[in-house]
């Protein structure tokens, strides 16, 4: 009994903080999603409006377009990060001179604030002053203008995200690879498997839990990308890079449409949960059931 009391006592600070900064805001957002609230308007009252925000959302071309580009963005960014991250992790599993040094500096993007990453990439990609358009023009005669080409803007945001977050994937993949037992790999060589077969039949299935955890983390993060993209493209040109986070930001802050913004947030949260759940059901659950 006593240790139980002590346990609660020790947990209390965390629980209080979690309650005030996690639980209350969450329910507050859900509650707001059913209201109309424009605190800076002439009439700043919070007015209950039922499911009107959600109805508006379903017919909101801006939201639907945003959802589309977000899915594309998340898909390309996370897939690329996984592939490059895994390749880098494999490279770091070998011994080569300067390995520790490279492994350290390759994680540097991780410690940068997204807003700074956005600023740097803006600096690098702005036509006529940026280093990237300069070289693309010199070498390939390609005119990169992310203020005008939707595809260019989209691609650059994906590359920026890959640049920023691949090291995280590399680190989790390294952790997964070093913890693998050596025996099955030796056995697979004896059993006549070549490198490609070992990858598909042994390595990949054995690091699958780590891959899934990484995908979950990156998925949730990428779905709520705001500051980098806002800084780099402001969601443009047009709404080419107006990802959900950016969309919510623009609804809530410049338009001060707090109720509607909350409704979109709730939907994004819901989507994240559904996507993760689907991934889980498709990739992890069947195996556990069989075992």
């Amino acid at each position: 009994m006593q240790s139980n009391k002590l346990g609660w006592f020790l947990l209390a600070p965390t629980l209080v903080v979690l309650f005030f900064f996690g639980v209350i805001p969450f329910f507050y957002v859900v509650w707001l999603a059913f209201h109309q609230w424009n605190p800076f308007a002439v009439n700043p009252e919070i007015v209950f409006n039922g499911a009107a925000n959600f109805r508006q959302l379903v017919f909101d071309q801006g939201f639907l377009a945003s959802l589309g580009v977000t899915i594309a963005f998340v898909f390309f960014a996370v897939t690329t990060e996984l592939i490059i991250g895994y390749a880098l992790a494999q490279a770091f599993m070998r011994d080569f001179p300067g390995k520790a040094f490279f492994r350290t500096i390759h994680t540097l993007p991780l410690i940068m604030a997204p807003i700074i990453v956005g600023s740097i990439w803006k600096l690098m990609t702005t036509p006529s002053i940026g280093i990237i358009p300069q070289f693309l023009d010199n070498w390939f005669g390609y005119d990169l203008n992310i203020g005008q080409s939707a595809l260019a803007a989209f691609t650059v945001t994906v590359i920026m995200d890959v640049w920023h977050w691949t090291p995280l994937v590399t680190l989790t993949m390294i952790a997964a690879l070093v913890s693998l037992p050596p025996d099955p790999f030796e056995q697979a060589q004896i059993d006549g498997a070549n490198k490609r077969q070992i990858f598909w039949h042994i390595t990949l299935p054995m690091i699958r839990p780590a891959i899934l955890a990484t995908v979950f983390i990156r998925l949730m993060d990428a779905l709520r990308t705001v500051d980098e993209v806002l800084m780099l493209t402001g969601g443009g040109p047009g709404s080419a890079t107006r990802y959900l986070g950016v969309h919510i930001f623009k609804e809530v802050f410049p338009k001060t449409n707090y109720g509607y913004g909350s409704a979109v947030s709730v939907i994004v949260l819901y989507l994240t949960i559904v996507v993760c759940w689907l991934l889980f059901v498709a990739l992890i659950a069947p195996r556990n059931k069989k075992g």
Partner: protein
Amino acid sequence: MANVAIRDVIKRYGSVQVMHGVDVDIEDGEFVVLVGPSGCGKSTLLRMIAGLEAISGGEIRIGDRLVNDVPPKERDIAMVFQSYALYPHKTVAENIGFPLKMAKRPKAEIAEKVNYAADILDLTKYLDRYPKALSGGQRQRVAMGRAIVRDPQVFLFDEPLSNLDAKLRVTMRVEIKELHQRLGTTIVYVTHDQIEAMTMADKIVVMRDGRVEQIGAPLDLYDDPRNVFVAGFIGSPSMNFIHGTIAGGTQGRVFRSHEGLELPLPPTAAVEGQEVTYGIRPEHISVGEGGIPVKVVVVEPTGSETQVFARSGKNLIDAIVKERIRARPGEEIGFRIDAADVRLFDRKTEQRI
């Protein structure tokens, strides 16, 4: 099917040398058993034959092909690891069928061979399970299954039966023998079990500290051990050793232990006064009148035979006799030794005289 030639093989881990020039010739179709105390390099030698461990010197040939630099998958060998090395994410059936799948065999053939192996190994019930839901012995059998579905040049087994119960071990021993007779494939087999070594081997290789001590047919090693180590290692329970010197007695030369115990000598090249180790196997001692007087320490009847531990001075001597003995501890009895069964070793070099 192929012969394996191991020539002056050396293995170093950094500055530590664990293999000091090993020479073994394995004929095509031969069943060779590697024995030796823990850490003597049996697994290392097996792994070098498999190609999992680079060799630091010497050469290994499989069927006339120099394989020093050939990767494992091109050596066409099947191996059962001491640690089983099952694929944790594959079912028993997938584990056993894996080598066939890698060789892109048709599905029907894989299923047939897997079922056949599972049947032999008594694993049919477990085909859909994952390794984590199996006992140690069952895992070991899965590892065996993965080897026997193949038809390789050489089988390498690293203590494949160590975790099985006595009954299953006998069954599996017969099974492996039969597999060997049916396929006629060369087998290199590591074991700690005397009976496995003696019953299965065409040839036994006794190793110690990364060196080969002696190679020979089981009974040759038993009858003619080259040195004290082999004499003590082959045969269970192990040979009795008594230290002493050669002395000239009234009826010819005898062995005299340091405590004055006199024992009969076979015709030998040993010279008078030479320091020797006198070896006699427990099963070559009989109990009876007029033998060497000894004091009984323990009597252990097992039914079919009786093991008697007795003391003469400081020496504890172990005898196994067919008849049942009713001696009490402390009682004096006589041990009879036939000089022809005695093996003499030089005390210093430990080599047979």
